[in-house]
Structures are given as structure tokens and as C-alpha cells.
């Protein structure tokens, strides 16, 4: 076909890989040809918006939004909220936002169709893999915390917790099978590039660290914690999440991937009273704190201090905070998900002084850990993700900050041990 024969100066392809490279397991939904192509389209559309349309928002901000504001008000912007409100009147911001939101909703529709049309089969397979397994601990009496109940996070109908039928896992299967479209494959075949990065960070920075017991907060379907469990097979790993569908799916998925040392426990991480003092060597949260609340965060930080063994570490992986040296335009763009993609706490979480909060929870300043990690993926399959194109996507990029602490060992006890 002449139409597809490319001239010699045709661009080299640097976009998302084909959907069919995603890693499958026993509870992965069957994805038809057209459903795979729909995910491909969604990934391409997200990338088009990020690389072709969004840069225009920055240009429009400089060319007309900022000058118009300054002329009208006789002063510059005082905070990111003023910037965002000014942007909402600009055509390019409006169209970029409307298309981005629509594509997110289309992604949910696509993934929900794939999983719901085979709900009976998926739910049966998950039941067979998890029935009577002590590694799945559900507490149906759990009261849903407001931070989950208020809105469905990232426009995912039913969020992490809704069960359409008893024993339902379709919400989790939708999350797992569609995240490729949201990230353009930037998290790798098993969406575990973030967890892989955390493992590499720990191995490099704490080479002698041999955790026996690991706690993952807000584990969801476990994609971030499985690489940790795999890297430390001698450790007992506990993942806590409010969503029963996520936990059921998480255990079934882990087992079918041959990872047996993770327990999935239903609970609100604001209350970790069921775990004993100094019972964990490592407490991890990955892109989770922004889906909680100030009170929950305070509880998490305080509980973390109590639960860690002396010498143990806590690591929270998140997007960077809105420090005073971050331009207000960047802060406003990073806030997009908070206001337009059902991540309301994102804006509040990113404005606090994390170091200060950690210290108030009892971690001494010199025990604090700061670092940065970027998703680790197979460069053969995901050349773009591995190369890190440098394209800023204001909160979607698979690169994060690490804030944490190492709980000090009491001096006297160290001496006794020595």
C-alpha cells in the first residue's frame, strides 16, 4: 500500500510499545484485538496531549495569560491557585484539559468493558486462587475512610473498594490492564517499574540491609510491592489496603507470578494498631500518601515510628513537593490531577513540609532520608521510558522523590549488642 510506504525522512518511531507486550498472569483479563488497539490508541492520545498540546499551554501562559493578569491586576501571581484560575480562561488550557479528562474517562470505559464482560470468569479464577488462603485477610466490617469514600480516585468508577458482586475483582483487573494506557507503558510490563526502582535504591544506598518483615501501605493490587518481595524472598511482606477487590486480585496475581511471601490485609492505614511495636524492618508507601488526608498522614507517620524496629527504614515515594523554588506555573500544572482528575488531596499533600512532619512524628533530623528514583523498565521493550526523554508531564512522569527515615538505634542498646 503506497500510503504506508514511508519516505526516507520519515520520523523514527519513539512512542509507546504495542499493548501486547504487557505481562500476563492467571487473573489478567483476555484482551481482544480491538481492545488492545483501543489501549494503544489511549496511550498514543495521552502521549500526543503531553508532547504536542501541553507545551502550548506553557506558551499561552507566557504569551497571553500572564501578561493579561499582570495588566489587569497591576501585580504578578501570588500563588498557584491564581495561576490555575487564570489558565482556565485560556483556549489552549481548556482544550488540553477537556481532551485529557475525556481520554481518562475513555480509558476507564475501555478497561471496564474488557473486565466486566468477563467478570464471572475473572472472579472465579481469583476465588480459586485465594480461597482459604491465610495470606488474604479481609475485614468486611471496615468503615470506609472519607479519603477514599469522597470521590472515585483518578476517575475510576467504584474506586478501589466497590464490589459489584460478592468476591468481585473487576475493579482491580481494570486498574491492572489499563494502566498501560495511562502511562504509555512507562511502568514496564508488570507495571512494577516504581517498585523495581525502590529496590535498586535500597540495594545501592543500604547494601547491608536485610529486612525480615516489610509493610507496604496502600498496597492496592500489589504491583509496587511485588518487586520488593521478590528481591527479599526471605522477608515476610504485609500489604495493607482498604479495597477488598484489590487485595483478592493482588494475592491471586502474586501467586500466579510465583511470589508467595506477601500477605494482603484489609485495613485503613490510619489505624495500624493491630501490628505490634517494633515489628517491621521496612515500611514502604509508593505514590500513596497523596490519596490520604492530613490526619491520616499524621497517624501514618506516628504509627510508622512505633512499628519500626530500631535501625529500620521508612520510605515514602511521591512526586516532588511544591517548594518555594518551584515556579508557580509548574505548581499549577501539577495541581491539574487534584482538581480535574479526582485526586483532591494531591494539592494539599504537596504543599506541606514533609521533613517537618517526619520530625514531629519523632524522627530526628539526622535520621531523615532524601532521594530520587525513576522507573526501571526493560529498555528492549520500553526504549522511551528507559531513555527518559526529559519531557515534563507535571505529575505523570515515572520519576519520583523519596522521603524517609531510618529509626535510630538507642546508643546503650548498640553497646550491649556489641
Amino acid at each position, binding site marked *: 500500500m503506497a500510503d504506508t510506504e514511508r519516505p526516507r525522512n520519515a520520523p523514527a518511531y519513539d512512542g509507546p510499545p504495542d499493548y501486547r507486550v504487557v505481562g500476563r498472569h492467571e487473573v489478567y483479563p483476555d484482551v481482544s484485538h480491538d481492545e488492545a*488497539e483501543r489501549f494503544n490508541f489511549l496511550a498514543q492520545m495521552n502521549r500526543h496531549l503531553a508532547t*504536542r498540546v501541553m507545551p502550548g499551554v506553557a506558551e499561552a501562559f507566557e504569551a497571553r495569560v500572564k501578561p493579561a493578569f499582570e495588566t489587569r491586576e497591576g501585580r504578578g501571581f501570588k500563588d498557584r491557585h491564581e495561576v490555575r484560575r487564570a489558565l482556565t480562561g485560556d483556549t489552549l488550557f481548556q482544550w488540553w484539559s477537556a481532551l485529557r479528562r475525556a481520554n481518562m474517562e475513555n480509558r476507564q470505559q475501555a478497561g471496564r468493558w474488557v473486565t466486566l464482560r468477563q467478570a464471572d470468569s475473572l472472579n472465579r479464577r481469583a476465588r480459586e486462587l485465594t480461597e482459604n488462603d491465610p495470606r488474604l485477610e479481609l475485614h468486611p466490617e471496615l468503615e470506609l475512610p472519607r479519603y477514599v469514600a469522597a470521590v472515585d480516585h483518578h476517575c475510576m468508577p467504584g474506586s478501589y473498594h466497590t464490589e459489584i458482586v460478592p468476591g468481585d475483582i473487576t475493579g482491580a483487573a481494570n486498574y491492572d490492564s489499563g494502566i498501560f494506557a495511562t502511562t504509555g507503558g512507562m511502568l514496564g510490563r508488570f507495571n512494577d517499574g516504581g517498585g523495581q526502582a525502590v529496590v535498586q535504591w535500597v540495594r545501592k544506598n543500604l547494601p547491608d540491609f536485610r529486612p525480615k518483615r516489610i509493610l507496604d501501605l496502600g498496597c492496592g493490587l500489589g504491583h509496587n510491592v511485588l518487586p520488593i518481595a521478590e528481591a527479599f524472598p526471605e522477608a515476610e511482606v504485609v500489604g495493607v489496603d482498604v479495597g477488598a477487590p484489590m487485595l483478592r486480585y493482588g494475592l491471586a496475581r502474586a501467586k500466579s507470578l510465583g511470589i508467595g511471601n506477601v500477605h494482603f490485609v484489609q485495613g485503613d492505614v490510619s489505624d495500624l494498631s493491630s501490628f505490634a511495636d517494633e515489628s517491621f524492618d521496612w515500611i514502604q508507601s509508593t505514590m500513596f500518601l497523596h490519596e490520604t488526608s492530613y490526619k491520616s498522614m499524621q497517624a501514618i507517620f506516628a504509627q510508622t515510628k512505633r512499628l519500626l524496629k530500631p535501625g529500620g527504614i521508612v520510605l515514602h515515594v511521591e512526586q516532588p513537593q511544591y517548594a518555594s523554588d518551584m515556579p508557580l506555573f509548574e505548581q499549577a500544572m501539577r495541581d491539574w490531577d487534584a482538581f480535574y482528575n479526582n485526586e483532591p488531596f494531591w494539592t494539599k499533600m504537596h504543599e506541606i513540609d514533609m521533613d517537618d512532619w517526619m520530625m514531629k512524628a519523632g524522627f530526628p533530623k539526622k535520621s531523615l532520608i532524601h532521594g530520587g528514583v525513576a522507573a526501571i523498565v526493560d529498555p528492549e521493550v520500553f526504549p522511551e521510558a528507559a531513555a527518559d526523554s526529559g519531557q515534563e508531564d507535571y505529575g505523570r512522569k515515572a520519576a519520583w522523590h523519596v522521603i524517609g527515615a531510618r529509626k535510630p538505634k538507642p546508643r546503650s542498646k548498640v553497646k550491649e549488642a556489641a
Partner: protein
Amino acid sequence: MMASPNGIDPLLLASAKAKGKRPQFLDNADTERLMNVVLALVQEVGVLRQRLDTVERLLEAGEPVTKANIERFEPTKAEAAERGLWTQEYLNRIFRILQQEREALGANDQYSEEVAEELAKT
């Protein structure tokens, strides 16, 4: 309705709304509704074009064009790159107006009506 034995209606539930008030970005609510419908159609045309591409590749390989063969199709890395490039070309064509809006930001353009008057004097 194609409800499953346990009562799940996938057609209805797949398109369910997420909890939380939906923001409106465009100045006119009907324009935004229409844009959502158009984007969904753009997506489906893209899917259809890739299905056609699969059919063509089966024919070129001398394989029977059956539903089963279409479902089994897995592009090689080179084929996936060709298909990905087509989608990029398609999206750049579809959203031409937004690219031009961007280019207009930095351009010191005049309307032709103004230029006509100017040319009448020079």
C-alpha cells in the same frame, strides 16, 4: 441487555460515571459534550484502521483472514512501530487546529482584509 448469570450488565457498567462532580473546561457545555463524542469516535476509527492493517498483513503473509487469525495477531517490533507511527500521524492530522493555535501564539499575523487595504495603498 447482556447481563451475566450473576446480574452484571457490562454495557451499562462499563460506561459508569466516577463519583465526584465533573469539571467543565470549554465555555459551552454542549461543545464539551460534542467534543467527548467526537474523541470517542476518533478512538474507534483508530481501532478500525488498525484492524484493517492487521487484515492486510494477514493477506500479505498468505494467511486466511479469519476472526481467529485477527485475534491471534501479534505485531513484531518493526510492525508495531509502523502501526504506532500511523497513529501519531493520524493524531497530528486530527488535532491540526490545536497545533495551529499554538503556532499562532508567536505569529504577528494580520487578517487578509487588513492586508488588502494595505496593498491597495502600496
